[in-house]
């Protein structure tokens, strides 16, 4: 048996005999297992619920009676985002964004009713998601298991005996490293099972395997940090104090400092404030409800010329519907321009916060994990864009119905009396313009490309660990 294997086996025997390490490994594995199961059930429930809500919202829209098409524009529609397969491990920003949007004419609403708003406020620091456990708590468990792996031998004097016997220090450290990594992987086991489950449920194998690979790299990095610190220190207590301090800094402090810095460095004006600018732009457009607004004079002239008539009443189409279409189009352009700007600002903030991945592996794995799982800000933005596209499509289709299927005269006189109101309606069959909404996560390729830089951050940390271990070996020998 090689020295490395021997050392690994001996380490496991030590953990087995000293109850502490064994207890931690069992607790760690159980915790991730429980959270994996709880989260999977919760996500499945949420997924079914949202699919159901989406279908009933669609049905409700289609069941609306005959009415004026513009009423349907204001009646609006709901879209729900179904969670991605890997959100059973990494729910990402989902709890903070809200997962449903109300779509209506002339407006872009924000996502409503984020889970956190209805929560008790107890889970701002911690949560029982597997990702929190794996990213924040498992490193602490690895520290508790491994802080004494080398210092223990130093305190007992056995390290000197080994060295004088001519053992290769690299072999010794590698043996201990493999033992520590294997204990870390044990706690990762529930994640691997969940990833396989996600694959069965239609997630691409490439995605799930890179997801697992990312977490393995993270475990490798922390095992390396623990071993290197243990190897350069002389005493158990010193190694322990340094590692716990490192854990506080790397796992808790730096990610938060990153987000606070991002907010301070690149403050983003609130949506409310941007809305004033939007409103100012929109005012130039004219009110789409009012076809006599001077802003539509040019449109009117063009149409009159095109159809070679003198009055709007003589147009073969309903001019009011044309105006509604025209102004919705212009308005959406402006809204989108501002929405894109806002998303860009949010992304810039997120990028600043994510650069902290060069300073702490926790931020690196968090960004990587969110992007791969499809629960990141980018995916949320895509949800917003797709919802907006759906909104624009159905509003414009209704406006087209307004233009083509409702006479100008009936429309203009709709408020005269009850009969006139009744006459200014179109058939409910026209509500079929609504297309089905089903939100799919980004393609595997997109997600892999986006997360590449954070994979690089993790690899950078691996490189750093190799250097650190080399330094440790030199210090010992």
């Amino acid at each position, binding site marked *: 048996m090689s020295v490395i294997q021997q050392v690994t086996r001996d380490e496991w025997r030590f953990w087995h005999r000293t109850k502490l390490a064994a207890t931690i490994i069992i607790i760690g594995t159980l915790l991730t297992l429980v959270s994996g199961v709880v989260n999977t059930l919760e996500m499945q429930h949420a997924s079914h619920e949202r699919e159901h809500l989406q279908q009933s919202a669609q049905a409700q829209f289609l069941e609306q009676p005959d009415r004026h098409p513009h009423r349907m524009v204001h009646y609006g529609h709901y879209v729900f985002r179904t969670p991605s397969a890997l959100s059973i491990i990494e729910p990402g920003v989902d709890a903070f964004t809200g997962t449903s949007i109300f779509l209506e004419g002339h407006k872009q609403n924000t996502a409503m009713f984020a889970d956190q708003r209805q929560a008790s406020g107890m889970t701002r620091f911690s949560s029982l998601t597997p990702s929190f456990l794996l990213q924040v708590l498992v490193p602490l468990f690895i520290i508790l298991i491994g802080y004494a792996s080398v210092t223990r031998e130093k305190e007992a004097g056995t390290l000197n005996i080994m060295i004088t016997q001519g053992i290769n220090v690299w072999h010794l450290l590698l043996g201990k490293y493999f033992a520590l990594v294997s204990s870390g992987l044990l706690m990762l086991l529930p994640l691997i099972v969940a990833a396989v489950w996600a694959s069965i449920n239609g997630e691409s194998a490439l995605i799930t395997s890179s997801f697992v690979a990312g977490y393995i790299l993270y475990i490798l990095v922390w095992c390396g940090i623990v071993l290197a610190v243990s190897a350069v220190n002389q005493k158990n207590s010193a190694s322990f104090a340094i590692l716990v301090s490192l854990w506080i800094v790397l796992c808790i402090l730096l990610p938060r400092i990153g987000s606070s810095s991002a907010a301070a460095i690149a403050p983003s004006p609130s949506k409310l404030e941007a809305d004033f600018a939007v409103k100012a732009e929109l005012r130039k457009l004219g009110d789409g409800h009012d076809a006599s607004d001077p802003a539509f004079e040019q449109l009117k002239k063009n149409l009159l010329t095109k159809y070679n008539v003198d009055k709007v009443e003589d147009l073969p189409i309903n001019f009011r519907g044309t105006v509604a279409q025209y102004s919705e189009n212009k308005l959406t352009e402006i809204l989108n321009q501002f929405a894109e700007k806002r998303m860009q600002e949010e992304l810039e*903030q997120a990028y600043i916060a994510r650069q902290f991945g060069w300073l702490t592996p926790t931020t690196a794995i968090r960004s990587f994990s969110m992007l791969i799982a499809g629960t990141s800000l980018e995916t949320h933005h895509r949800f917003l864009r797709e919802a907006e596209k759906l909104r624009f499509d159905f509003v414009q289709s209704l406006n087209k119905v307004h233009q083509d299927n409702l006479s100008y005269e009936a429309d203009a006189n709709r408020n005269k009396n009850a009969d006139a109101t009744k006459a200014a309606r179109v058939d409910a069959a026209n509500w079929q313009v609504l297309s089905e909404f089903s939100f799919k996560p980004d393609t595997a390729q997109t997600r892999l490309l986006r997360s590449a830089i954070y994979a690089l951050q993790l690899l950078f940390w691996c490189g750093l660990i190799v250097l650190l271990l080399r330094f440790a070996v030199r210090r010992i020998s």
Partner: protein
Amino acid sequence: MSVFSNINREARFLVKQRYFFALLTIVLLLSVFSVWSGISETNTQLSTIERLQQKDAIDRANVLAKQSDYGSAAYYSFHLTYSAPSAMAFAAMGQRDIYPWKHRIRMLALEGQIYETDSDNPELSFLGRFDFAFLISVLLPLFVILLLHDLRSAEREAGRYDLLIATASKQQRLWLSRASVLCAALAIALLLPFVIGAIIMQAPLVSTLQVIAVTLGHILFWMLLTLWFTASKVAVKQSSAQIASVLLAVWLGVAVLVPVVSDIAIDEMVQSPNGGEIVLTQREGVNDAWDLPFADTWAPFIATHPQWKNNTEMSSQFEWKWYYAFQQVGDQKAAALSTAYRDATLEKNNLAQRFAYISPPMLAQKLLSSIAETDTLAAMKYEQKVRDYHQALRLFYYPLLFGAAELNEAQNNKTKVKKVAFDAKALSKLPSFSTFKNTIHTAKENI
């Protein structure tokens, strides 16, 4: 020998420990950063509100100038509502990144407007902010554990323990004064930047003292716990690292597990209507009204506003008073759900408050955000104020829309009500949010 000289001796002794100094410097820097980022966030919010107020006033003036009837004036004019951060908010941003603290509302159905969230960047909220309250509630226990866990065991491991206790005239006093010095230094490092921040922000003295009291109380709790455990029989046979592991496990339990489990428990205990249902109910109510007979709108409206029962006559298929009446009815239809939703939020908050008693870090966090008025309750108060203000807007417009003056005149002369004449001057008396006081009913207090 007096307590003071004991403390004095230990202070002079500990000043020479390099490790102790390094830790204190880090704590001081963290505290400075948390206070700085808190102040910068507060100032950003304050200046945002200031800018919004200006833009809001200009925007409304522009809009109102173009209107020629009260209905359109109410339809097109938005009103800014906001909840300014308190002077203490820099220390605890609390729930302000999740609950909205600014809205622009108009006289349409409120239930369709009030859940709009102009929230922060969700990724930053997810990562969590680093504010003073976080430092005090979550990290402070770790600092105390790092400083005190090896109080005795380090002496034991260094072989000085027997000599120390054989020499010290009162050994309890030795450990106590050593721990006191360490914790006092920690408290100073934590609180100094905070006090400076409080002075800069001109925070009220009482709440400043309250924050200091919470901080000291939390330190004291962990100091006594650590002292008790390190003196226990179990700890005698354990190494420094083993003792710290046990203390870390306690921290993990109260700072991570208790909150997570209580959250699940609270969710099970309190049934809350789905927020989406409120908006859906309100939407159905408002949209159906267009196709329903007018009487279906007037009946529920008059039930709550009997003073207008003689003025529901419609001269056309569309009249603003009818339009706002069905907006009101839409709110009325969603009222039961909306109240249940708010009650559930309050109930959850109350339960969380109670559960916090078994988790000192949670308790500290709750207390701090309550002192800083950034907790759920403060958010609820703001929401109530928005509701009251919206109500005031309705009370302002209804007489103008229904024609109170004209109605009186018509009743006196026994003639038909004339159309309400538009007078732009009347709009100068629009209630303003910045000077608005909760006069209708005060926000629910559930403490």
